[in-house]
């Protein structure tokens, strides 16, 4: 069910069965309005700076044959915004005051103010759902309604069947307004683990595997039937965040990391590029702060504190940390420079990065323990602030406004696990989000990122663009950073390259 879809897979499937009014371009640039692609809307225009009017494609039909109308858009917005539905997208629509239907094929979005991401907010999270099939569903029942297991959308693929725990099949809609997709059947096979999924690809049972580890990249390269396809972008970055509050009492400052000078020294002591290249491979990219590659500001010149082990050693000495007892670990007033990095045991990438960071810091005389916990415990400790350093990962919106949700003071108690707070940073972020023009938004983002990098709130590591494993017979394959199958309706298999399963009739 689109309003309550949460997992990556659920959102990928929803995206093929349902349409948005328009979709973001392949580079996920939220402010490049020219790159947006028409979907249910054939065109759109700003009637005034706060009113965005969409004209729907009158040929668009639900899979049951009913026309898609402006009333469906108004209904969809109402459902997404209803607190009882608990849609993950609801907070993203908070800057839209209302949505009104002008006639059956014209709909207007009214914004509280003008800002660069108005088009993004109006379309990115809002899959249009059929009013005539869902208007009687109680709002608290959306998550459990049977429609979610046999949905009727207006997208390029129709839902065909779902064998629980095994597979889900979609079939290309021959009557789709944009033309029947090149690949007639798409089947998701649910594997028990990433290794089992990779086995399906390597044994020829599957054609696409979304995320290849460096080891898997090697295996795919050696298989003549397969090829590696780099994502066009990525919405993911990971980081080791310092806890500025005590692990056992969030109301008191952390004995080590409340001091910005120590955070800066440790950050300078970690060779982030070496870590990222060692784990993600030669194409690995290091984040220039809390930035995913998809952010439209990520190409700007944002840099963290440089790697400088001599400088780090000097700074530690200036702070009074010396190896007074010759045990290889720095100490001050009888206290060793020692802390833990908490990470989820399920993340191989983070584990490998943490091990290398541990060794780099050991060379500086810092004792680092790796605290590996299961995912539930990891989140519980993150929420409670019960850690020294937390190895987190962000993977969400392509909009830089998401920075506020992780690093602003208002996010303490939410996703700002390290409890970083700097009013100057918050001010700059707010100005960047509210800016009416791109140039001033860019300048405010540069100011905000400069502040948080100077404050060394965290050590930002991988912002690498992942690789997918794909069967060579698939043509025209591009992988979008936020959704691996977003462009699937454009993929094809040439007749000459078809194998047995391509010829299996739906």
């Amino acid at each position, binding site marked *: 069910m689109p309003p309550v879809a949460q997992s990556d897979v659920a959102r990928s499937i929803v995206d093929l069965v349902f349409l948005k009014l328009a979709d973001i371009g392949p580079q996920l640039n939220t402010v490049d309005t020219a790159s947006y692609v028409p979907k249910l809307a054939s065109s759109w225009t700003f009637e005034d700076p706060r009113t965005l009017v969409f004209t729907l494609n009158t040929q668009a039909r639900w899979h049951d044959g009913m026309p898609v109308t402006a009333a469906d858009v108004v209904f969809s917005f109402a459902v997404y915004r209803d607190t009882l539905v608990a849609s*993950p997208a609801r907070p993203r629509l908070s800057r839209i005051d209302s949505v009104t239907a002008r006639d059956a094929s014209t709909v207007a979005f009214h914004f509280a103010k003008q800002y660069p991401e108005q088009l993004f907010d109006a379309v990115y999270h809002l899959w249009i759902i059929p009013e005539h099939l869902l208007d009687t569903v109680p709002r608290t029942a959306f998550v459990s309604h049977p429609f979610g297991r046999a949905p009727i959308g207006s997208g390029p693929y129709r839902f065909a069947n779902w064998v629980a725990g095994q597979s889900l099949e979609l079939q290309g809609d021959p009557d789709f307004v944009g033309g029947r997709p090149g690949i007639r059947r798409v089947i998701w096979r649910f594997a028990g683990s990433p290794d089992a999924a990779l086995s399906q690809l390597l044994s020829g049972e599957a054609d696409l595997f979304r995320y290849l580890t460096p080891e898997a990249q090697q295996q795919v390269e050696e298989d003549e039937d397969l090829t590696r396809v780099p994502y066009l972008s990525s919405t993911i970055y990971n980081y080791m965040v310092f806890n500025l509050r005590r692990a056992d009492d969030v109301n008191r400052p952390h004995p080590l990391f409340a001091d910005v000078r120590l955070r800066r020294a440790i950050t300078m002591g970690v060779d982030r590029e070496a870590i990222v290249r060692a784990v993600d491979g030669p194409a690995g990219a290091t984040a220039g702060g809390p930035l995913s590659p998809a952010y439209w500001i990520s190409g700007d010149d944002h840099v963290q504190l440089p790697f400088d082990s001599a400088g780090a050693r000097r700074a530690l000495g200036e702070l009074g940390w010396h190896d007074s007892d010759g045990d290889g670990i720095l100490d001050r007033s009888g206290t060793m420079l020692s802390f833990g990095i908490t990470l989820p045991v399920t993340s191989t990438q983070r584990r490998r990065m943490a091990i290398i960071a541990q060794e780099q810091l050991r060379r500086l005389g810092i004792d680092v323990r790796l605290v590996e916990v*299961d995912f539930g415990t990891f*989140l*519980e400790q993150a929420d409670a602030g019960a850690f020294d350093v937390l190895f987190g990962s962000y993977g969400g919106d392509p909009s830089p406004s998401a920075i506020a949700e992780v690093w602003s003071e208002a996010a303490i108690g939410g996703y700002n696990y390290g409890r970083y707070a700097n009013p100057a940073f918050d001010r700059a972020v707010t100005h960047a989000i509210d800016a009416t023009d791109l140039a001033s938004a860019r300048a405010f983002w540069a100011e905000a990122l400069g502040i948080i990098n100077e404050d060394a709130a965290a050590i930002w590591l991988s912002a690498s663009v992942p690789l997918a494993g794909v069967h060579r017979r698939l043509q025209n394959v591009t992988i979008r950073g936020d959704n691996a199958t977003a462009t699937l309706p454009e993929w094809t298999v040439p007749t000459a390259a078809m194998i047995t399963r391509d010829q299996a009739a739906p």
Partner: protein
Amino acid sequence: MIRYVGARLLHAVGIVFLVATITFVLLQLAPGDPLTRVAESTLISRDVIEQQRRNFGLDRPVVVQYGLYLGNLVRGDLGYSFREHRPAWHAIRDRIGNTVLLAAAGLTIMFALGIAAGAWQGAHPGSRGDTAISVLTLTVYSTPVFWLGVVFVLVFAEGLQWLPATGATDPVTYGQLSALGRAWDRLTHLALPAITLGLAGAATTARFQRAAMLDVVSQDYIRTARAKGLPERAVLVRHALRTALLPTVTLFGLAFPVLLSGTVLVETVFSWPGMGKLTVDAIEARDYAVVTGTAILAAILVVVGNLLADVLYHLVDPRTREASVA
């Protein structure tokens, strides 16, 4: 006999209640809840998660949740699966057949192969074949079942591409196959997980069977049978093996819970859509209703398996039958 079975069934109700309660308590003690599993991503804001908690009743006191859970259980309602967005029973119902099929195939391989190998060893003690099989069974016995599964996938699925690596059917072609084609598709998908599951158990069975056979072939009545001039095959199969099967039958009852826990690993390695994989996924997702539901069902299956073993023992051992009649 009927009174005995009745008492055992009553006993089973108590066990099921205990399992239901312990599982519920353990899940409450475990960190997180069904909605925190997805919460590392900032796509979902905290107030939305809180609303989802309210929608599912997870904001109520634990005692209230426990009361509702037990009340629903008595009415045969296992609760709602947060992960699958449907009643937990429906999720379990869709998988139980696959687990029973896998366990039955594994059990068949386990006993057929184990009894045959062990009986042959017992009849030919000290031979080269006996030594070779002993080394083989010890090796398989010492090998972790998931490792065996991974090796089979590497060799037979990825390398030779003789058999499929994962799943219970081929979702691409299954719908278009004839009845015979579907049966073959199921069999090829079943082969690797069933052999993996069965082999580990077969090694244990073979060692049991060998010891039992050795014990029996030295008995006087076997010597008498040979002295009467019966063919060696008849002596071994009709007289020795029949008696030597008794300890193996008791193994059946013990094998059932072991086999069920084995299916958890095998189903995960082979993505076999059964209860084991469902349970692992549900534990990871803190999907309370499914975890407690599968635990209860596993408890029932173990109790029934043990009961069946007792009844089987009763049927194959004339002495227990006579005692029962007396």
